[in-house]
């Protein structure tokens, strides 16, 4: 309803002498409408998994953001607490499930994860995916160039494929592959260093974390730091 009103008022202001400006105005409007439509569809799907009130979702988001940062850009607590902003919903859902099923060991996130209803998980992951704050920063700048090379070309001698082939050229991730752009430097270093001590921990439930296991193993510590520095700087 609001969308239609906006469209009408925009049309009534149309000035034939300024077609370019109108086109420029209309494009973001269409993008906005598309966004609203997509969000509305996502919300409509929630009915399949039960319901949750907007108020409950907002309260839970505020709770998540206590540790993950006000815009889910990540936070340096006692541990590096990862950025969730812009993360693909499928990856977020998979990880929450992994904490609950003890495939990924993290006591705090087990406690957090196991009380979330499927409808709440849908709503939260959609919201985090839509956020786009600037990277938190703080990684070293010196190894960024080396990291970019590894990310884009891999390390053929060590059988390390280019990170970009799964995580995308801009490290935005896709489906089960996480976004790495803007992720915290020390979080990435920590994950790549301890990959199989933390992930894939439930032998009865093997998961996609196995894909990264040999890659994480093949990278040396300086290479890990270089890749982490590079992706942490990406918007």
């Amino acid at each position, binding site marked *: 309803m609001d969308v239609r009103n906006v469209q009408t008022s925009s049309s009534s202001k149309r000035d034939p002498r300024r077609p370019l400006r109108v086109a420029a105005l209309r494009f973001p409007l269409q993008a906005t409408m598309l966004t609203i439509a997509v969000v509305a569809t996502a919300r409509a799907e929630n009915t399949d998994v039960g319901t949750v009130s907007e108020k409950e979702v907002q*309260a839970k988001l505020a709770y998540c953001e*206590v540790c993950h940062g006000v815009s889910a850009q990540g*936070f*340096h607590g*006692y541990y590096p607490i990862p950025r969730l902003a812009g993360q693909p919903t499928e990856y977020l859902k998979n990880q929450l499930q992994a904490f609950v099923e003890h495939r990924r060991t993290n006591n*705090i996130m087990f*406690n957090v994860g196991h009380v*979330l209803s499927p409808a709440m998980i849908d709503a939260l992951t959609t919201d985090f995916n839509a956020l786009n704050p600037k990277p938190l920063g703080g990684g070293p700048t010196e190894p960024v160039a080396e990291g970019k090379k590894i990310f884009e070309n891999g390390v053929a001698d060590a059988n390390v494929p280019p990170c970009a082939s799964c995580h995308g050229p801009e490290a935005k991730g896709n489906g089960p592959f996480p976004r790495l752009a803007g992720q915290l430097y020390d979080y990435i270093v920590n994950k790549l260093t301890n990959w199989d001590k933390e992930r894939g921990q439930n032998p009865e439930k093997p998961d996609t974390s196995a894909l990264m296991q040999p890659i994480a193993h093949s990278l040396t510590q300086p290479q890990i730091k270089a890749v982490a520095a590079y992706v942490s700087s990406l918007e």
Partner: protein
Amino acid sequence: MSAAWSESVRPLKKAFWSCSPTGGEGRMMLPKHRAHETIRRRSALFVAILTIVLAGGGWGQYAIAASSPDVQAKLSYCKDCHGPSAQGYRGYFPIPRLAGQQPAYLENQLRAFIERRRTNNIMFNVAHSLSPSMLAALAADFHALNPPPIGGAPQRLVATGQKIFQDGMPENNIAACAACHGPGATGSGEIPRLAGQLYPYVIKELTNWGKERGQNPTKPDTSAIMSPVAHSLDQEQIDAVAAYVSTLK
């Protein structure tokens, strides 16, 4: 730059100018070759002084040795209220433990008092006269202390407090304190150590969070992170968490 700065460079300045061919009385008439030699000596001395000063980490950040009498005097002054080992003290107000505290947190709080981000008149008066280097020296000294907790919390609350601290209460959107303060409540960077902190002090801070911290609207600070957390806890939960952390070493 602070008064402490000019005090510390005064003897260096004196040494510098005493080598000057023109700076001291009765040295104006030095033979030319002597004057040149003196200038060379002066340049070498200047470079040496500059090196010593810059090695301290920059013009505004030179270090004071912890053994310096100034630092020792100031430490004993702090300990009048915060306890002889900075373990905290029950004065008219509960006066917090500073021992083992994170240096970045201590410095941030001292600056918060000065900038009226955190309101406390006594601590404003104490802090605004401290030079940046004194502040860093004190923070490092307090961080190094490790006395046992002073205790005094009701034991019956400790188990509930431990549960909230380590696991949070996700059903009620209460965050696990351990995520940021660490499983041993030792803190990290700007995030304070809570281990061994005074039971009544932790209660007072959590109860009055938004009335005491983040009070300068032109300078928002990290205290905003704790604001929703403090709000989400009820009085019983606050008491329990305070009891638990006050027992930790």
